[in-house]
């Protein structure tokens, strides 16, 4: 299981939780797992999210690998000027 940290603004959509455990080996599986566990998160995830894995911000790639002990943070989708 991977522990996923949500930004606190998402708590209301995840039954009050700010950490969610999902079965996942990739970023894509993390996102699928989150929606399965908490369907309320679907819109926020579809709107675009980035995932920070061990401090590295994965902006969009769903195939990036995740280990069970990885530090995983959901973040809003990064862009720039």
């Amino acid at each position: 299981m991977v522990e996923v940290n949500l930004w606190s603004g998402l708590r209301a959509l995840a039954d009050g939780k700010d950490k969610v455990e999902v079965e996942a080996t990739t970023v894509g599986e993390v996102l699928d797992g989150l929606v399965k566990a908490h369907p309320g998160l679907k819109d926020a995830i579809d709107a675009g999210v980035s995932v920070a894995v061990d401090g590295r911000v994965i902006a969009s790639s769903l195939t990036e690998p995740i280990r069970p002990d990885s530090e995983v943070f959901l973040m809003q989708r990064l862009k720039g000027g």
Partner: protein
Amino acid sequence: MALDSLKSEGFKQVGTRPDRPDGFDKVTGRAKFGADATAPGMLHAAIVRSPHAHARITRIDTSKAEALTGVKGVVTRADFATGLKGENWNILENVMAGDTALYDGHAVAAVAATSPLIARDAAKLIEVEYEILPHVTDVDEAMAEGAPVIREGAADKSVPPGLHPNVVRYHESGHGDVDKGFAEADLVIEDHFRTEATHQGYIEPHACLATLGGDGKGELWCCTQGHWNVQKICSALLGLETSQLRVTASEIGGGFGGKTTVFIEPVALALSRKTNKPVKLVMSRSEVFRATGPTSSTSMDVKIGMKKDGTITAAQGVFRLQGGAFPGAPCEFTAMCAFAPYALKNVHQVGYDVIANRPKQAAYRAPGSPMAAFAVESVIDELCGQLGLDPIETRLKNASKRGTKASFGPTFDQIGLVETLEAAKAHPHYSAPLKPGQGRGISCGFWFNHGGETAVSLALSEDGTAQLAVGTPDIGGSRASMALMAAEELGIPYENIRVTIADTATLGYNEVSHGSRVTYASGLATIEAARDAVKKLCARAAAKWGIPEDAVKWENGCAVPSGPNAGDFDPLPIDQITKRMGATGGPIVGHFEATPEGAGVSFATHIVDAEVDPETGKTSVVRYTVVQDAGKAIHPTYVEGQFQGGAAQGIGWALNEEYIYGEDGRLQNAVFLDYRIPVASDLPMIDTVIVEVPNPGHPYGVRGVGETSICPPLAAIANAVSAAAGVRLHELPMSPPRILTALEKQRDG
């Protein structure tokens, strides 16, 4: 990125400062920018814009315009696709109003004619009737009870119940217990800050030349930071198949984030489809100000607690961003960047994205971050002042470093904030004596940086030279960096590489030139494409020598046996292989397609000396030093250029630039005379220090450098003004009238 592909020393070309490949074109007037293209039989277009901040469009009568000799076609919203959703709908609504004009300058119709003058005359003949609606342009007023609702149902599910419908997105993050942290502090300062909207102020107005037929096939030439994005959006807005619209990026006369989306391109395409002729559309400067994408305006509350020794015990911020009539103000970036430079046990940040009757905001260099830095770094300066602490030592004491849990959640990898602070401390500027009436200000800044979808192709020519095709428009000399990286890998002279910005038909999708991603991501892809070509070159040598491919390595532009056991062969230079490539397996092309995900975050520390004229309230910047982590500077001169340009834009934001709306909701200063960007006589030389803390996510350690440089200046100058004149400005810009008011208040006690 595997570690074995990392290269940190022994560069032969990277780090040198050769002339840029497109220099000759740009100093002779030969370079073709957006407005420099023509086509046989071309028409010229003009856009009719709303003079009202908020109004229902009750009637559009185009008959008089259409009757004018030379007019070939008129389009309104009815000429675009229907049924769009999400951001595509937002963009279409912004590009051409539906039933309501949402801001002063909102497009409502457009006309194409045989000359620019006829098009302009015809635009005046298009009659539009409006029913004027109540409007709001200020962020705090737009959130307040009773404010006019811009659009019902625009909010997404992130917004907590009970807020005004103009609050359309909400962000909240942080960790620890801020109340406990504030209780541990010896001094807590809380202040309210406001910043006005600013514009990127690129000198080249948006311009395009569109050709679209009834067969759904089109060609578009435009100045943009990302032509694949233009292709994608325009296809959706016009109802075209994406691949049938080929987009070519012109040379781009500045973007800074403002050319990451579309404004006029879909309109020119619609006119071309309707008239069956090429249509050129060029914005005027006032159209650029009124109807492209300025920054958000903000209203912010920041509270920070500090111990006497300088340790920050807790930090909290509320950031309200007004981003025009559509969702998208980067409130989450403002919130996430705000406290990122500091290692905080207790931190909490909230962001509100608020809509109002202004043009849809667009990205501007580190979108959202400079405003946050203005508020946060001002409060830190105030704390240091009241506690008698050195501003750099205090920042060093709290600085984020490898292993710090970032204010936005994750743990930082290798980062360079401490190194920038140490370099600033050691810089002669920091210890130079000040003249009477001058003050010195310090500020740090942070930006995430970005990777993004990238495709690159590198084709070798028979004479051993190389043609590199990248998909990221060159805004500030990136061709030079790309050529340096390709030359480094191939082991051939820099001058032997020709870099082209390919059109959308030539490469796979390339994300926009934004997020400081070009030298990072297109650079990484260039290195990988060159390595791919080298592998193929080595294979040809191996075949010639009759040895295994892995027994050949590449050195100084030649294939050589990888060791004594591989056999005894003379080095085979690149041109000896390419000369015969047609007969030995065909053309040799290296390529790379990926979404690099290792963009390293970037920090900067700025030092500024300012003096304030007590009679006029004018602030002069007398000395400026930028210290920033570049990871690895590929072409140091252009890295310095990014540092200097960001600082200059930040100086303008701090001191002069602002969108001024009247009571009527109309923009009052839509010309460069009244929207005053820094001119040469406003600025001193801008000193730079390039710090290099390698980014582990790039083969050479590159971090993007384009954006972070605009984050510290706002606060650094506010802190310098405070030191020089003894007044703390909480609102930008710190224009002479505001400074005078603050000085008068101070005199009146």
